[in-house]
């Protein structure tokens, strides 16, 4: 219903969406976006640079829960932290169709960051209030769809915005967004057109899919977008001896990652040797897997622990191991590995999303924590930015932060990726975290669904169905006349 400043294509590459072009200015800190003059809101008024500027400043200055995501923008942290007024934010409308965004450091990946920046109508906000997009009478979007009905019980109804002149291709004239039946049977009945198969899929259902030639042909791999890891609270003296690198290294080396991932992941996960999942731009698995923390060696682990004064785990405090959501089977495996190989006991604790965030990252009161991180865009920065000092984790790494920031700011993409790889090596070696796995899944969609969105991307992954929630799904898809599904209903 709204237009993004930048879109991501099926390969994860950024392309101009709300803008027609973007470039970095000579100062190396300012990105200039030339906006599409033909783009209008539903009421026919043009989408101007002033709307984009106002949207960002309003969000960052009025308590935006994802303000951290835009921390690369100049003064973003200070504006969202209330230390500076929103006017000081590094975004400005140069003229009606030229928008400039300034950054604290050179930020070569900024266009990708802007894939989540959606424009609001300043005029509609001022005349109808902040909920103008929830009422069809006041709705004023800039995307290919316009709101016809919003019903909290039965869902939303959308119609094609006939005034839309943007880059998205939409084949459907109407769209109903509402509760849908779940499960494989509903998918087979054609009531849902996507179904995900992963580690959580019951074995019987997996076998059923495998024995059906049609269903099997409708199953497509989805790239791993997520890294599961556990982290140590290394703040000095807070949870000693977790602030001792030897102790952390011992705890890492006591874990047989490859075996655990094979057992727990049930064939739907790859070992995570660092933060970037396999197949992700900048992935450096071949080097990372040879680093000491990733080498399973229980004898060496015992010696390291003994050297730190905790031979056979004697005298080692019993720490809490916090998990986001329910207690993970991976965390249980790690708990068992530490007990068996080092004599260290930990207590597993599950907490819901917000409770965990508050405990582990807000209060920084979890000694060890199990968490996952999913991409926001296709650049190493999406996974590594959160490790900078001032990010979410309970650790202080000024030297690493400086190394990473320097690497991340290199404008030459080849040199940048090489430098960022070195920074990731240093991060893994620091043992502030231990990457465990990158789960992956398969997506199923009907064989009579066609169009570019139904094709595998350059890496062989299916993205047109909303890969990792980043790509704008359901565009470039349409029904074909194929009768390939008829056999599912016994015709």
């Amino acid at each position, binding site marked *: 219903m709204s237009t993004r400043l930048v879109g991501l294509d099926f390969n994860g590459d950024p392309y101009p969406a709300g803008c027609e072009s973007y470039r970095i200015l000579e100062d190396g800190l300012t990105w200039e976006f030339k906006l599409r003059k033909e783009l209008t809101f539903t009421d026919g008024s043009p989408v101007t640079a002033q709307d984009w500027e106002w949207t960002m400043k309003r969000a960052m200055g*009025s*308590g*935006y*829960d*994802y*303000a*951290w*995501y835009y921390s690369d923008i100049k003064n973003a*942290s200070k504006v*969202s*932290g*209330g*230390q500076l007024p929103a006017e000081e934010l590094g975004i400005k409308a140069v003229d009606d169709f030229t928008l400039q965004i300034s950054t604290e450091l050179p930020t070569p990946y900024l266009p990708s960051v802007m894939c989540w920046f959606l424009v609001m109508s300043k005029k509609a906000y001022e005349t109808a209030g902040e*909920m103008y997009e*929830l*009422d069809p009478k006041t709705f004023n979007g800039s995307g290919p769809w316009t709101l016809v009905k*919003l019903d*909290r*019980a*039965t869902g939303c109804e959308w119609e094609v915005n006939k005034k839309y002149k943007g880059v998205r291709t939409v084949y459907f004239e109407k769209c109903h967004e*509402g*509760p*849908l*039946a*779940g*499960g*494989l*049977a*509903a998918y*087979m*009945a054609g*009531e*849902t057109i996507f179904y995900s198969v992963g580690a959580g899929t019951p074995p019987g259902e997996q076998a059923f899919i495998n024995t059906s030639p049609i269903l099997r042909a409708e199953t497509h791999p989805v790239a791993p977008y997520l890294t599961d890891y556990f982290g140590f609270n290394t703040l000095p003296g807070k949870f000693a001896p977790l602030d001792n690198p030897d102790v952390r290294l011992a705890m890492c080396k006591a874990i047989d990652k490859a075996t655990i991932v094979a057992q727990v992941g049930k064939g739907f996960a790859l070992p995570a040797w660092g933060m970037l999942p396999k197949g992700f731009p900048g992935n450096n698995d071949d080097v990372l897997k040879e680093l000491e923390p990733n080498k399973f060696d229980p004898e060496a682990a015992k010696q390291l622990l003994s050297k730190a004064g905790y031979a056979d785990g004697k005298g080692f405090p019993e720490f809490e191991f916090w998990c986001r959501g329910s207690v993970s089977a991976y965390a249980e495996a790690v708990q068992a590995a530490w007990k068996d190989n080092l004599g260290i006991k930990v207590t597993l604790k599950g*907490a*819901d*999303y*917000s*409770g*965990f*965030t*508050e*405990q582990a*990252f*807000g209060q920084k009161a979890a000694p060890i924590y199990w968490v996952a*991180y999913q991409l926001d865009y296709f650049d190493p920065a999406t996974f590594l930015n*959160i490790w900078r000092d001032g*990010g*979410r984790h309970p650790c202080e790494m000024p030297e690493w932060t400086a190394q990473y920031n320097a690497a991340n700011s290199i404008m030459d993409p080849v040199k940048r990726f090489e430098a960022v790889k070195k920074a990731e090596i240093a991060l893994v070696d620091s043992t502030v975290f231990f990457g465990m796995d990158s789960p992956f899944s398969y997506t199923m969609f009907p064989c009579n669904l066609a169009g570019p969105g139904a094709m595998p991307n350059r890496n062989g992954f299916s993205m047109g169905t909303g890969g990792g929630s980043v790509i704008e799904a359901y565009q470039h898809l349409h029904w074909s006349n194929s009768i390939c599904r008829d056999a*599912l*209903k*016994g015709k």
Partner: protein
Amino acid sequence: MLNYVLRRFLGILIMLLLLSFVTFVLSRTVPGGPFGKVEVPMGKKQLELFKAKYGLDKPILEQYVTWLGQAVRLDFGVPFTAPEMTVTGLIFKLLPYSALLGFLACVFSLTVGIILGMIAAAHQNSWLDNAIVTYSIVVGSIPAFVLGFVVVYVFAAKLAILPAGGWGGPKYLVLPVFAYGFPAIGGVARWTRQCMVDTISSDYVRTAYAKGLVRSQVMSKHVLRNALIPMVTSFLPMFPGMMTGSMFIEMVFGLPGLGKQFVLSSTNRDYPMVLGITVFWALLLSVTYFITDILYGVIDPRVRITQKSS
């Protein structure tokens, strides 16, 4: 009787007051909050702005008193996740879906279950009795959502005669009502049989037979009426229970409803909605039990006599 009714109403009010207070305090004091579902915790200033906007920056007792003042006027606030509506509006928007599904499933399971229970009791210890008891144990052990997936596979995916889910008309209710009500038949049938068997073995039933009444007269006038007392107290609360407890069925069949909303509100820490639904459910159950007690007196004159004498 009036005194009894007033005492019960007072009890309900006190219970609602206590329940709302405990829910209010607990939901707001557990770690995290409605604005904590992010990868990186919000800064102090951002959190302050959010809390001030939703009145969460005041002491909890003050918040509760404010909420209570509004609640007595049936204003339960605005859901965080549906800010264009009120809590009351959203509850009554979703209630009809859950209520209709639960009511139909109840009627279905009670109708079939009571008939089966009566047949079993009338043929106690026969092969028919054994078959019905075995059947009711097996049926009662099937989780509704498992049955849901099975019926969707058979009737929607393979036979393509009924929709797999969604909301659109009577045909959309057939599978969910069946999947929801079918497992409940087992419990209803067993309890009906138990109540009937207990009554059949009573002295007054033997006396009725001794007086020369035929079996149908004994069953309808003496057995069924007396067996109704424990059945009513058990089956009437089934209605609010099933009308509000259809979360899994709502998920499987993609139906709108209060059960799903309650779970979503809890995980999203939508305080006003959680409190609103909790109080509403408690009120619904209390009123049902209250009505059950009144009906108890209507069905069984001994209860009225006991109350009079007390």
